[in-house]
């Protein structure tokens, strides 16, 4: 299993008056297979997970994945860390399902036939083999999110970060995406508002106002979050 290390990380963003702190003094060493991050909207959850593959840069502190510093070894980290976003439509940039998965492989697999074969294998694994030549715009929301996951898995990452991947999906599609994510052999770093899903993970971080206020077993962490949010 991969190791994600955050050491005294602070993230800031510029504003008209100066800067705002999005995340403050976060330290954690994540080695569990399924780690969930919960918290209110705007609390800093997404900022925290975006640090892991360099989509957000730390103002101070260090972020490492398997010993590689995200700030200095960005490309190597991104080869290890796949990212699934909330809106699948923004992730899908090629016209057809097969071509979109193959796009993920262009940098590292130069042979077109091998690229296509690997893309087809991932699509078969994720249950979209029969939609390979379909337009990405003709897929349902759930299928688009599964395709986004396929695009990530094609690169064989050791960590998959998923930022609210089921928020926009109906119950059936959300369930399909959840089961796919939870059954992966890769380490999963998940942001979600679904507390039942959070309870199925191995470790949970609660983020409130840019700080990790609880880092515990999911049952206890979720209880802490509910009490804090509703009090």
């Amino acid at each position, binding site marked *: 299993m991969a190791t994600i290390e955050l050491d005294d990380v602070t993230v800031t963003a510029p504003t008209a008056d100066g800067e705002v702190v999005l995340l403050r003094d976060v330290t954690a060493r994540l080695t569990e297979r399924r780690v969930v991050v919960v918290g209110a909207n705007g609390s800093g959850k997404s900022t925290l997970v975006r640090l892991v593959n360099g989509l957000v840069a730390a103002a101070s502190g260090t972020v490492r994945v398997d010993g590689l510093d995200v700030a200095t070894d960005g490309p190597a980290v991104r080869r290890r860390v796949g990212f699934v976003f909330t809106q699948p439509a923004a992730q899908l940039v090629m*016209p057809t399902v097969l071509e979109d998965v193959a796009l993920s492989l262009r*940098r590292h697999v130069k042979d077109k036939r091998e690229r296509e074969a690997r893309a087809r294998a991932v699509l078969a694994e994720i249950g979209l083999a029969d939609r390979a030549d379909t337009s990405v715009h003709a897929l349902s929301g759930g299928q688009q999110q599964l395709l986004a996951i396929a695009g*990530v898995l094609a690169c064989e990452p050791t960590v998959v970060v998923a930022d609210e991947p089921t928020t926009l999906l109906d119950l059936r599609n959300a369930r399909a995406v959840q089961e796919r994510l939870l059954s992966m052999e890769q380490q999963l770093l998940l942001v979600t508002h679904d507390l039942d899903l959070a309870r199925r993970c191995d470790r949970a971080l609660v983020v409130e106002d840019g700080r990790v206020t609880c880092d515990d077993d999911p049952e206890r962490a979720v209880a802490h979050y509910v009490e804090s949010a509703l009090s």
Partner: protein
Amino acid sequence: MRSLPLGLQVPGDTVWHRLPTGRKLLGLVLLGVGVVALQGPWLPLLALAAALAVALHAGVPARSLALGVRPLLVLLVVVAALQTWQRGWPVAVEVVATTLTLVVLATTFTATTPTDDLLDAVVRVARVLRPLGVDPERVALTFSLAISSIPVVTTLFTQTREAAKARGLERSPRATLTPFAVRTVAHAHAVGDALAARGLGDPD
């Protein structure tokens, strides 16, 4: 039946599908230049007929082609009226036929070419610019994004217009165009993040 999204290939084994992508792309450029150079009403009309014949022979469904061209028709009617008023009907026919020919040829090209092949062809052409610091894969990706963004931006515009209409602001261009611009930029940011997350902007 829906219109054929740009960049979506129509499976087939016609001569147009079998042509090497590089030659096809070069042919498209040369034909485009040639069509624009045609004068008078009759030659552009003949070129449009030939382009339609090629599209149908390549297996592009006629109805899909018509629906794909439809969004352009309002603009073409306005242009035709303006040209007829200012320069006479032969020029109006020339402009409209030339535009339609280019659209039909471009649609046929994308319908008979897998996007992955197109990217490979663009990468090959862009390699000559590598000494100038140009990354060929990035150039190819830009082509692909331009093609794939068209249906997304169209959807954003439709949604924004419907939202303005729902608030009784259908006559206010600002109520549509401002949020449309904001949403388009937000979408571009989201796509940029997604590409960065996939490592597609990283050096080899």
